[in-house]
């Protein structure tokens, strides 16, 4: 039996279910101190004075003077300081670090900071500080508006922040060792942390390594911010010479760390009365918060997906990510696409409404097919499945019949068609040059990559690929814990790339190793010749062309395709929405491990449902005012309806065993599907989350 395609035993072992698995907060080092971050309490201003209003004996105190080399979190830009020096740009910005061996004393310590306050900027539409702007141009959007068979439909769609709510809050431990320092932590991207620490520490401290501990969820939320926390812990550890643990409590995690970018998306569309899209003019604004972080790439992915999975000869997508005096927004599953695909899918429903046309028919007329050209000029290949997932979703849910039968009742059904590019955008994978390594062990092989297991099944899925490519028993494949001093830098665990890209390098490593084994089993070879390792670098398909200055070309090597259907009940007295059933029809090449893949779809669909209906970040004076799980609500068992998952196959020749990326795709569809169902009930929703309060306003309008 092959491993790929079967739900084999997971490499996680039983530890997660017995409590034996060790997460950052479960680990204790001798002599360890507890660290705490003192943060700004204003959104914008200058620091006048800092007073330590407690008995400082036994405390280690760090401020920006203690920065060994450069006070900048090195990511896409170097604008964000580890510790504010003179000015603060957002609420909860780190200013001072404390550490003490007694956790209670650290938590009780009172630091008084006086500021000279300045007027903050919260409205992204009023911001003229642009982190990144993008224009994607295809054809001429202005020409068709004079045609008399054409209808113009306009609309503005907005989405709020979304908080990741990984159940394990952020945490790291910095441990001095051999003239350097080791960081143990809950991280998605160990090599991002290394990059940031090298910048912080300079050449004086060459020996840094990052070891990923068991990680209690990420969803993008542990992509960039752990670099900040690691830098803090390292500075405290270097100053004290002792291990320092920093674990955020839930409120600190929610208020201070990144969230999904709020968005404003404007559509102006020319469409023939027969339903053919003629021109799409789209403006995207993302609220980046106070520092650049990953906003340029979030904007990029958001813009590329903004025209939806449709063919339109004349398309212009203009986007900008702007500064505001709020905590920086960052990576979150979907990375800009859930925002822009929400907008375009609700817009498509409104277009159908204005044309008096069935919205399924409108999608059938315009959905992308192999050979079609996208907004960036990419010619789609045979692995384009928009029509396939649409037809299956409509058929499977008996959509047309239900929609007709429920008309005039409090029940409703809606759908959304969507797609998601897998891997880094454009030339990103070529520049990244990810590496993977396979090492012989006395009994088999070991996978040595920096890709992290954060619940999605990295360890298992990689081991399955190696098992079949090498033709050895699954049990003889082990997976190294990511430790940057021991594993290859396989790039960040983001962008739906861990299976498609890193899995592909591992497949190639396996083929090379198989050749080197010369017919011997790994154990036989090892006994005879000793150690052997194979390391390879990722080579994207040679046909990928991308011009980053013009935003033209093959934006992604391949795309996953999905159609979600939401069935729900609406209570016209309380404005509560009760989802009855969600159907997620998704094509992502081929599932390597069907049970894990299904888990990605079920879980991503739940996050999407929360995004649609429940998850509202209330900002007050530039900070999240509801930073507790009591009043920031994510779906519970009682909120989740049945989720019917259909995994369709359309292999991508460049992926391992035909696999594409999957992780983000399920996040894109639920919100527009739910809102399109609400539209059937006469609720003109153009902003999410569609909480009862918001729906009462929509009904009143």
């Amino acid at each position, binding site marked *: 039996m092959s491993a790929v395609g079967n739900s084999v035993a997971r490499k*996680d072992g039983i530890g997660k*279910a017995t*409590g034996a698995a060790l997460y950052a907060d479960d680990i204790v080092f001798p002599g360890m101190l507890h660290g705490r971050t003192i943060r700004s309490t204003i959104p914008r201003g200058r620091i006048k004075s800092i007073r330590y209003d407690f008995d400082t004996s036994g405390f280690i105190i760090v401020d920006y003077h203690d920065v060994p080399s450069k006070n900048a979190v090195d990511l896409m830009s170097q604008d964000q300081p580890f510790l504010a020096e003179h000015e603060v740009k957002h609420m909860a910005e780190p200013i001072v670090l404390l550490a003490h061996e007694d956790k209670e004393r650290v938590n009780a310590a009172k630091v008084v900071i006086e500021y000279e306050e300045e007027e903050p900027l919260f409205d992204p539409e009023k911001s003229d500080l642009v982190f990144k702007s993008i224009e994607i141009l295809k054809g001429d959007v202005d020409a068709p508006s004079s045609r008399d068979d054409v209808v113009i439909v306009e609309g503005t769609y907005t989405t709020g922040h979304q908080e990741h709510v990984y159940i394990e809050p952020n945490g790291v431990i910095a441990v001095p060792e051999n003239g350097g320092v080791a960081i143990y932590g809950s991280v998605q991207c160990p090599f991002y942390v290394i990059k940031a620490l090298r910048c912080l520490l300079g050449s004086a401290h060459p020996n840094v390594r990052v070891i990923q501990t068991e990680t209690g*969820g990420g969803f993008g939320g542990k992509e960039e911010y752990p670099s900040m926390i690691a830098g803090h812990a390292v500075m405290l550890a270097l100053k004290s010479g002792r291990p320092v643990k920093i674990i955020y409590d839930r409120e600190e995690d929610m208020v201070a760390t990144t969230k999904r970018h709020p968005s404003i998306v404007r559509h102006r569309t020319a469409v023939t009365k027969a339903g053919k899209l003629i021109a799409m003019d789209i403006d995207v604004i993302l609220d980046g918060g106070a520092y650049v972080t990953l906003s340029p790439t979030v904007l990029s992915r958001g813009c590329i997906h903004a025209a939806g999975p449709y063919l339109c000869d004349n398309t212009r997508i203009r986007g900008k990510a702007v500064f505001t005096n709020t905590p920086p927004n960052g990576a979150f599953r979907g990375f800009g696409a859930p925002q822009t695909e929400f907008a375009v899918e609700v817009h498509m429903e409104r277009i159908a409404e204005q044309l008096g046309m069935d919205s399924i028919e409108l999608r059938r007329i315009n959905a992308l097919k192999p050979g079609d050209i996208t907004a960036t000029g990419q010619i789609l290949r045979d692995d384009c499945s928009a029509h396939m997932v649409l037809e299956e979703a409509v058929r499977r849910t008996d959509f047309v019949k239900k929609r007709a039968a429920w008309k005039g009742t409090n029940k409703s059904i809606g759908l959304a068609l969507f797609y998601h590019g897998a891997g880094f955008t454009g030339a990103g994978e070529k520049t990244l040059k990810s590496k993977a390594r396979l090492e012989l062990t006395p009994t088999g092989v070991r996978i040595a990559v920096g890709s992290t297991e954060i619940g999605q099944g990295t360890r298992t899925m990689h081991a399955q690929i190696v098992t079949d490519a090498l033709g050895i028993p699954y049990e003889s494949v082990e997976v190294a814990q990511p430790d940057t001093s021991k594993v290859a830098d396989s790039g960040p665990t983001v962008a739906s790339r861990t299976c498609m890209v890193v899995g592909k390098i591992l497949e190639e490593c396996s083929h090379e190793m198989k050749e080197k084994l010369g017919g011997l089993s790994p154990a036989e070879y090892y006994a005879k010749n000793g150690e052997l390792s194979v390391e390879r670098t990722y080579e994207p398909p040679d046909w990928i062309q991308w011009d980053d200055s013009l935003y033209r070309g093959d934006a992604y090597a391949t795309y996953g395709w999905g159609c979600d259907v939401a069935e729900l009940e609406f209570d016209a007295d309380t404005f509560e929405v009760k989802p009855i059933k969600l159907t997620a029809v998704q094509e992502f090449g081929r599932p390597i491990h069907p049970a894990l893949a299904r888990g990605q779809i079920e879980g991503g669909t739940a996050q999407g449902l929360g995004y649609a209906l429940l998850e509202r970040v209330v900002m007050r004076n530039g900070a999240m005012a509801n930073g507790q799980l009591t009043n920031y609500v994510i779906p519970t*068992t*009682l909120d989740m309806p*049945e989720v019917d998952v*259909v995994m369709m196959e359309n292999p991508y020749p460049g992926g391992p065993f035909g696999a594409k990326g999957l992780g983000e795709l399920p996040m894109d569809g639920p919100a527009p599907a739910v809102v399109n169902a609400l539209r059937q009930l006469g609720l003109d929703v153009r902003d999410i989350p569609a909480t009862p309060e918001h729906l009462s306003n929509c009904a009143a309008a």
Partner: protein
Amino acid sequence: MQFTLNGTMKEITGNPAARLIDVLREECLLTGVKEGCGEGECGACTVLIDGEPVCSCIIPAGQVEGADVVTIEGLGGDHPLQQLFMNEVGAQCGICTPGMIMAAMKLGDAPTLEDVKTALAGNLCRCTGYSAIYRAVLKWKGMSVPESAGTLVIE
């Protein structure tokens, strides 16, 4: 202060107002008890107190005097529900899993899907969307599992 912890009598000293979760994790070294929110909302720290699932982050340690406390470690390593959580992918990142399993312990025989949902309503999972958790729990109870998903292959 004395109480029964995972089947053996335990005597602890210290502040009875300390949170039970801190006593369990730091003094008794039972780190299978996870902290997700510290306010009784997420259920990751769920333990059984006299058979009732309770969030140990909002219980003062003094309150369990004389009680019977069971943590995930008290189930041993080979409880059938533990294996089912892994097999059915009811555990993804795993941080909610110990609390989820402890909350499920309260379920009686032959639970319906609605019974399972109600029993786990106080436990948040951000990874799975809960469906796989229902599959694990229903299989453990010998109940049939609604199987609506499939894989279709196109040529």
